């Protein structure tokens, strides 16, 4: 019995990691925040895990400006405008958190 078996190819095949900067000192760090943290007045601030990461990057690597953007939904891809802004303004981007 001859069978044709599943053989899925993936879109990510051949995709490589972006080049890494030699140093993070002074670099602008973008944070693409899925959750955010709801404050007392109902507005959002940086998710605690990201906030801690921001502090660590500043303390250990002397990173520069921070651009923080909260995605409208944790489960949907970020709007193209948010991605474009981060790509154009940030040197490195933290694009997710899991806790």
């Amino acid at each position, binding site marked *: 019995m*001859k069978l044709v*078996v599943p053989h*899925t190819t*993936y*879109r990510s095949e051949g995709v490589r990691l972006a080049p890494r900067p030699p140093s993070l000192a002074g670099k602008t760090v973008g944070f693409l925040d899925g959750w955010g943290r709801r404050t007392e007045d109902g507005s959002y601030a940086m998710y605690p895990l990201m906030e801690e990461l921001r502090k660590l990057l500043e303390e250990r690597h002397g990173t520069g400006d921070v651009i923080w953007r909260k995605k409208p939904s944790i*489960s949907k*891809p970020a709007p193209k405008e948010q991605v474009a802004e981060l790509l154009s303004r940030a040197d490195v981007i933290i694009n997710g958190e899991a806790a």
Partner: protein
Amino acid sequence: MTAFVSPVVEVSDFWEWYELALKNGWTDGLVVAPPTERQVSRIIEYLGRDPKEVVGVVGPRDGVGTIEQIAINCAMAGCAPEHVPVVVAALEAMLEPEFNLHGVQSTTNPCAPLVIVNGPIVAELGFNAGEGAFGGGSRANACVGRAVRLILWNIGGGVPGQTDMSSQGQPAKYLFCAAENEAASPWEPLHVERGLRRDQSAVTVFACQSPDPLFVPGDAGRILKVIASTLPTTGVNMFHTAGQFLLSFGAKPAQELARAGLTKADVRRWVWEHARYEVGWLRRSGVLVEGEGHMYYWGHGEESVPDLSRLPDDARLPMVRGPEMIHVAVIGGASQWWMGMSAGWGNYGGYAVTKAIGGPRRTS
């Protein structure tokens, strides 16, 4: 015979094939039919499409869904060629942005894509829309539902504990396909409500939980009151995330509601207006804790939600944003007063999408 891109292997019998499929992770555990060269070729020839044609990229692993890969999975599901256009339409629907398939496949929620079939194809292919519609009784329901699952498994790569993080899953993940019982329904069919013609065949996909059965005996007023008093519970997914839900009426309660002059739109509006959370009840039940009022009700993913702890006891809150977020379909027979409520995934996605089922593109 089609010239395949995929490997062709030779096995001695069914059991060798099944072991091979398990070893390679080509099935979620259930038995799968052997995708013989002949059956896969028959499907591709019936569709009349280039086997290399890409229908879409399937998340979460972004597998490339070519006609050949789809045909292989349909053959493994036991599909006859005529079932496959239904599967392709369901896949196209799941690939629309509002369905957010990547999220549906990888969420911790137990939702699974439900495929509801409408139109002349229901009778032509023998889909079960009557007694037991959600639970078997037809090759069409079984094979289409199973093919969707295998495509999501093999092409999408939605594997429990790896990419599918659903805490518990649900039996409907194995397969989840039913048809609307247009013959016994007093109402406009689902696909017509959603913009297609009655003589078109269509699928509507909706990511949801298995129907939670409600027993709704009595006249229309009583049916509605039972629904309104049952639905707004605090553990139901919509309390946290709004989104959409499906009311699947057996034919008997649907006919009773229609006898009272109610349309699907009337039912949707009535349920939206009356199935509500009373803040005083939330407070008395201990669910509502001062200072955490905005954490729970619609607190996941909604930008602007009221702080419940600041509302008076007689405030009543809707389950979802509006009547249009409630879907109504007639699924099942008229043998008793049963209906089902299927909670959706919430405002993250999995929203209902309807697509017409295309015919084969044979030129000869």
